[in-house]
């Protein structure tokens, strides 16, 4: 841990700018040589159905707490500088950004691994739920066993 390191979590309805987020991770940060970012977006199809929109619900309070715990675990396992997690809620449309995870570290291995770890755990531990709107109607998405398996491999 150095003064340079921090972590930040934002749950928001507004969109975010990947360029702005990368600029913040890099600003006054000469000690980290690696910046790894992940952005998740709304796909046009899910299980063969045409998706028109997704509505994201979450559990305010628990969401921030669970993401904080995931980030802390990542910081214990890898040597990280800055961590930023953004997750949007509310109604989102095809191509919209849903989630952002940005991690910096001195060298790339730590940032790559920690970024994937944070996303894998966010998927199975953070209390968000997606409701999908399609031509056939609205339905809550089911959790995937494959996501549990991905998180368990860490």
């Amino acid at each position, binding site marked *: 841990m150095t003064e340079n390191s921090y972590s930040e979590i934002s749950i928001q309805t507004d969109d975010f700018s990947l360029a702005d987020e990368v600029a913040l991770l890099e600003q006054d940060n000469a000690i980290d040589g690696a910046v790894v970012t992940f952005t998740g977006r709304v796909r046009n199809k899910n299980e063969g159905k045409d998706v028109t929109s997704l509505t994201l619900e979450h559990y305010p309070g628990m969401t921030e707490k669970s993401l904080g715990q995931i980030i802390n675990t990542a910081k214990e396992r890898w040597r990280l500088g800055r961590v930023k997690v953004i997750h949007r809620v509310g109604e989102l449309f095809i191509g919209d950004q849903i989630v952002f995870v940005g991690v910096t570290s001195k060298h790339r291995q730590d940032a790559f691994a920690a970024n994937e770890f944070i996303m894998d755990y966010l998927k199975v531990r953070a209390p968000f739920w997606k409701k999908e709107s399609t031509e056939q109607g609205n339905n809550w998405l089911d*959790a995937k066993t494959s996501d549990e398996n991905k998180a368990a491999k860490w």
Partner: protein
Amino acid sequence: MIKVVFFAALREQLNCSELSLSSENLTTVADLKAELASKDDKWQQVFANSALLSAVNHDMVNSEQLIKSGDEVAFFPPVTGG
């Protein structure tokens, strides 16, 4: 009193986002589930789902978790964010 909150599909099935009930005779999350399931057939059916997740004061817990007056207990389906 114990505050109980419900989310996503569960909230819609029960048509209830939040309720409060006396903590008397409730020692664990399992006791609370049994109490809620006894409300009527619909609640019985919803709480029979073994995939249901529970949290106490914003931490994920299992059914053996102890609860006390002032706690916030949440029930919800497996999460699907990201």
